[in-house]
């Protein structure tokens, strides 16, 4: 097998793989939202409520939060 052929096969299979992953991701996004597991649109709020005292959309559990949650 020549180098160019190997490049061709590598290109083809990796592209197929990445396309499958991308479409899997699309499916995942819409399905998990439909099932009610996730609400992706709430992340849009991260740009809007971005004061230090605003409550995070999802609190990072690694942060030891001594602050009073309100």
């Amino acid at each position, binding site marked *: 097998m020549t180098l*160019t052929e190997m490049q061709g096969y590598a290109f083809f299979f990796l592209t197929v793989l*990445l396309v499958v992953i*991308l479409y899997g*991701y*699309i499916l995942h*996004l*819409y399905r998990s*939202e439909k099932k009610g597991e996730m609400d*992706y*649109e709430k*992340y*849009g*709020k*991260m*740009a*809007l409520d*971005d*004061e*230090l005292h*605003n409550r*995070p*959309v*999802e*609190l*990072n*559990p690694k*942060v*030891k*939060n*001594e*602050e*009073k949650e309100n």
Partner: protein
Amino acid sequence: MQSNAALEYDYSVAKLYMWTTVIFGIVGMTIGVLIASQLAFPELNYLFGEYGTFSRLRPMHTNVVIYGFTVSGIMVSFYYSAQRVLKVSLAELPLINLLAKIGFFAYLIAATFMVISLAMGITASKEYAQMEWPLDIAIVIYWVIWGVVMFGLIGARREKSLYISLWYYIACFLGVAMLYLFNNMEVPTYFLSGGLGAWYHSVSMYAGTNDALVQWWWGHNAVAFVFTVPIIAIIYYFLPKESGQAVYSYKLSLLSFWGLMFVYLWAGGHHLLWSTVPDWMQTMGSVFSVVLILPSWGSAINMLLTMKGEWNQLTENPLIKFMVLASTFYMLSTLEGPIQAVKSVNAIAHFTDWIPGHVHDGVLGWVAFMIFAAVMHASTRVFKREIYSKSLLEAQFWIQTTGVVLYFTSMWIAGITQGMMWRAVDEYGNLMYSFIDTVSVLHPYYTIRAIGGLLYLIGMLMFAYNFFMTATAGRKLEQEPQFRSPMA
């Protein structure tokens, strides 16, 4: 992380980069207007002796605008908005904050030496990678510092998920790091020759066609990861924040991200159509350039739809004007690019003025407009002052829009005219025009382009004045505005 009633976001680094954005903007665009005028009026080549010729100044224009103005603007936006979407202040992380400041001064020094070395004609001669190896090393150090700051901030975040803007900043960091390193692989000649010649001189690791491949793999993706990816990061934060509307579809923004990441890197081959690189790479470059329309328009349409139901803001708020027109220009240039990447069109367009025309509707209309809007929006929060003048901002918008339109229309006509004249043959199959005929015919278009550029520069100066006055004399704000930036 102690809770502290007075804890605020720390904008000191963002503030520093704001000043360099303005200064490099003025310098870069002034040189741009000068070299545009030199093409119409060649006598202007002799203003500064051997340092003032078109050829010597042109890389200075591109480098100052890319690495000075644009990178500064990106850093303003990063140091302003990353803290906010992560809900962690730089003031809480003194070490990271110090590193960010060191980074700024490293940047300033590297940029100064870049200008000096380009003026002296010290160059590796690869487009947008002209700097010689000592400066390359400085840039790598700077970039690593930025990465440490970014991941340091992310590590201390209160928000569990990363906002889409941060996805784009991370991609910008990784993409530029990888491409820059590969493209700037060079061997310093001084050390290998036993100390002969200039110490800063180097020779590229790659030769001929390979060098071209790596260079345009870089050149094209410098556009991707400096002019597109971080600018999308800017618009995903500043447009929603300024308008008070959440991103139209967060899911679409995630999908466009992965689409853009995958497709963009393949499109580099379109700079080398009809050259000596293997045919399949050329075809691949062509095909992927066309596919690239999808993720690009995904982001742009997402931005425009964010304004749904709030279009009245377009008439009331000049910052929204800048950002909406920027997304429109983004759509225009991401459609124009793929058209030029089609092999038959490229045969006419390549080597002509249509290419600089394409670049400039992207950078003037999209990149710079977004940076203006972001800096202005941020300055009300950073300086806790009202924007000095709304009418000045409005005037700047219209003057610069006119400038951009003059610029790209004249270059479209010039490019296609020249491309057609180069290949025109008479009835016997002989070339109809000598080369100089195809240059002389461009004079009116070069003049129009210089006028367009001048208008844009005037707008830049208005912006600089407006920014300076906002920082020093704008009306003090009692409270940080939530969405719309207040302006007088």
